């Protein structure tokens, strides 16, 4: 028995001739919360549905709890109902013709548990999502947030070892979404259940995951902890899709072949001190600097490594932050500063950022 609860290797799912998922491999460890993040059409939901047994893959293998549930080589495909996983659907899929308690009891009844055990488990699950008072209510009369909770209770009621989430918060309004995010993380920690989560909301992914898998056009772009993904994006796509970043084009100066500090020559004769998380091959053309990691100051900054003068072109007040468009020798930079740091449009400033925040992209 391996430590990993979910093991995906070289998964391929095709719709007709179009590959929706094209050779995806990753694992989810016991008790871990992993999120598949990507824009719509990137194959994240298809991957999740293939794990649940709702889509039939056309290649690769899926192992859950050490048992192969799909393998092209072994010609095995365990139907959804025999995989023992649980899933929360985007539309909640709360059955409107049943009461809340009957919804939650469904998975337990299917498993033919004794009556008192069913009742106890339903009560426990509804307690965990604070819906105990609604047990006898018809599910058709619930609000969106309440349906969400019932769907969650139903998914955890039969104590599955693996829990799948398909954009469970995307139909809630913004305020409730943030609240549920906190609750979900809390519940996941408390139950210690292995979970795989799908979302297109990068903020949500960073906030609640142990690890994030960033996907694009059917493949994996980067896999790592939320901090990893944010601070050390590997590709243009990740730098652009997760958070907001400036992409600066140029070339790597020869001489370095190991991970660590590198020199990067950008347009306008700029020599930037950058950071490579990989061994540079010399062909890189881009560095990424997060908009939040750039300091602005009115006077000169002494001793800072990447310290360049520029002019404020535009200021946009967003409330929680101010976004500046700054003209600098290599073109334009977007910078986000807290609303306490006010600069007038047209004023000359010095901008600076640490070398480890100027990340060399692999491709």
């Amino acid at each position, binding site marked *: 028995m391996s430590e990993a609860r979910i093991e995906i290797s070289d998964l391929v799912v095709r719709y007709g001739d179009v590959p929706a998922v094209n050779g995806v491999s990753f694992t989810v460890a016991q008790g871990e919360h992993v999120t598949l993040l990507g824009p719509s059409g990137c194959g994240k939901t298809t991957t999740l549905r293939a794990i649940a047994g*709702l889509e039939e893959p056309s290649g690769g293998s899926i192992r*859950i709890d050490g048992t192969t*549930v799909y393998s092209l080589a072994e010609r095995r495909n365990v*139907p959804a109902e*025999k995989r023992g996983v*649980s899933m929360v659907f985007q539309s909640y*899929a709360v*059955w409107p013709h049943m009461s809340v308690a009957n919804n939650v009891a469904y998975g337990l009844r299917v498993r033919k548990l004794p009556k008192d055990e069913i009742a106890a488990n339903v009560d426990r699950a509804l307690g965990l999502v604070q819906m105990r008072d609604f047990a006898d209510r018809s599910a058709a009369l619930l609000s969106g947030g309440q349906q969400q909770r019932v769907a969650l209770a139903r998914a955890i009621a039969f104590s599955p070892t693996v829990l799948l989430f398909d954009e469970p918060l995307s139909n809630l309004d913004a305020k409730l979404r943030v609240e549920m995010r906190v609750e979900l993380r809390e519940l996941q920690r408390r139950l210690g259940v292995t979970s795989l989560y799908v979302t297109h909301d990068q903020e949500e992914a960073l906030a609640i995951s142990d690890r994030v898998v960033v996907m694009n056009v059917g493949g994996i772009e980067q896999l790592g902890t939320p901090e990893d993904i944010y601070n050390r994006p590997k590709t243009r796509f990740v730098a652009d899709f997760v958070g907001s970043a400036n992409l600066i084009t140029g070339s790597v100066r020869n001489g370095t072949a190991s991970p660590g500090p590198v020199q990067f020559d950008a347009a306008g004769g700029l020599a930037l001190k950058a950071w490579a998380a990989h061994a540079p091959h010399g062909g890189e053309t881009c560095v990424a600097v997060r908009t939040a990691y750039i300091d602005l100051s009115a006077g000169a900054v002494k001793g800072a490594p990447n310290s360049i003068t520029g002019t404020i072109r535009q200021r946009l007040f967003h409330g929680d932050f101010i976004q500046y468009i700054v003209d600098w020798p290599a073109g334009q930079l977007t910078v986000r500063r807290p609303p306490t740091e006010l600069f007038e449009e047209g004023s000359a400033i010095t901008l600076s950022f640490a070398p480890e925040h100027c990340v060399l992209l692999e491709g």
Partner: protein
Amino acid sequence: MVGGSARPIWRPSSQGIVTLAILVFCGGLVIYPLIYLVAESLNTGEPDVFPPTEYGTGNYVDLIDDWHVLANTGFVACLSTVMAVGIGFLAAWTLTRTKLPGRAWLERLMELPYYMTPLVGALAWSILAAPRTGFLNQLWHVAGGSGDLVNIYSPFGIAWVMALFEGTVAFVMISAAMKSMDPALEESARVLGAGKWRVMLTVTLPLVLPGVLGAAVFVFAEMLGSFAAAFVLGLPGRFVVITTAIWQAVQSYPPDYPRASALGISLFAVMLATLSLYRAMVRRGNFATITGKAFRPRTMAMGYMAWVLFAGCLAYVIVAVFLPLSALLLTSFQRFATVILSQSELTLANYETAFSFGAVRQALTNSLMLGVGVASVGVPIMVVLVWIIYRSKSPGHGLIEYVVMFPQAVPRMVFGLALMWAWLNIPIPIYGTLWLMALAYFTVLLPLGVRTLAGVVMQIDKSLEECARVCGASWGYQLRTVTIPLLRPGIVAAWLLVFIASVRELGVSIFLVGPNAKVIAPSIISSWLSSSSELSAALALIQTAAVFIALIVLFRATRRYSGEML
């Protein structure tokens, strides 16, 4: 939980097995009789011997001599299509785009003509407008007119009765096209400065036109295969169309099955071509207005014109439903049909005959039994069919849709003929029994039931079912606990519609009735043939009453579920 019960990829699932079984069964029901009919149409040897001893295209070549029959069919179909689409378009525009008093009510009323069968309509109109004896002509004479005011025994009469019936079909189709048009398309033209009429001509009409053309083609195809009106109103004036020609060929002595088959296959080919044209029109992207999204159309205030349009819609319902029913009602209580009440002799004799005379009573009970039986046994099968067509991923599920919808493309008359010929020549003795009738009804009503249920299945969020599977439910358990309870309103609607359609079935029944298997619609025909319009009127009313009772139950049920079933 993940155990040794995992199935290898290549072994068929329970869904796969059911899919295959359904394909074989339904395919057999639909295709098999038609193969017999094609074989018979190529029979140039002894007409009564099957399988034929000689094959040839002679029967088709002979159809050239029947050119006037083909011309008649085309003429009547065109004429009534134009009238039906005219009625449908005006009514649809009035009810979706203008501010009218009592719109919701009127919309419901507009559906009623569909539940009057062409047979009932034709009988009623022959009572109303037959030369000399028709009520309208009687009144004309009393008022001092000479000759006949109207003569329903004419091509125009047939087209008129069919148009009244099909007008509501055109109405439903065209108003669907109008309702699915985004009002923003018109509003943006208004904002850019175009006037009411300019918007109508440059935006509304081009957008709705494909919907209107689609309705016209669909109605035309239905007209080609219609039998009852041409039979009741055409034969007295020796005006023969294809369907009535088939009937005559079978009834002649000796029966000319090869000719009937060749006529039937030709009609089927034309209808198939027309319906393919319809499908192509619907499929092609030019249905820009049909987005599947329902909009609330913007309505226009029409001033006094509103009342004219309102009166027009009401007049249609009166002419198509209330006037014919009143004529039938009056006639059914008389010994001799007359509208001059001073001469009338009121009696209950016709109803007494209907309920006591063995053959007629038998036909009534048989029809009700068949209706209940076919609906109760057929609808559960249709549920499984619909689920496989729209939800299953097992191979062959797309093919099932074609097989199941196929009877729609076969004129009822032709299908009845094919069934008769097939089962006469198969050594399983169910021809002339209610069993064959039940099988036939199930087959021809498949498209109706499946379409009704499909509308509901497609409204059910797929993840409601997927969730059940992920929770550990098998396919059967999921169907039983989730799908069927959610489908209940659709199941009720499908049951009632199949019941209604069974009770009024004529085209197939007319070839399958036997001495021990009589049903009501053919009985009405034979009582009319024995020139008892009074008894026919009583029977037609009884049939209509059964249909309307089921209809009221249906309306109440659908209102309770508040879903839009129809």
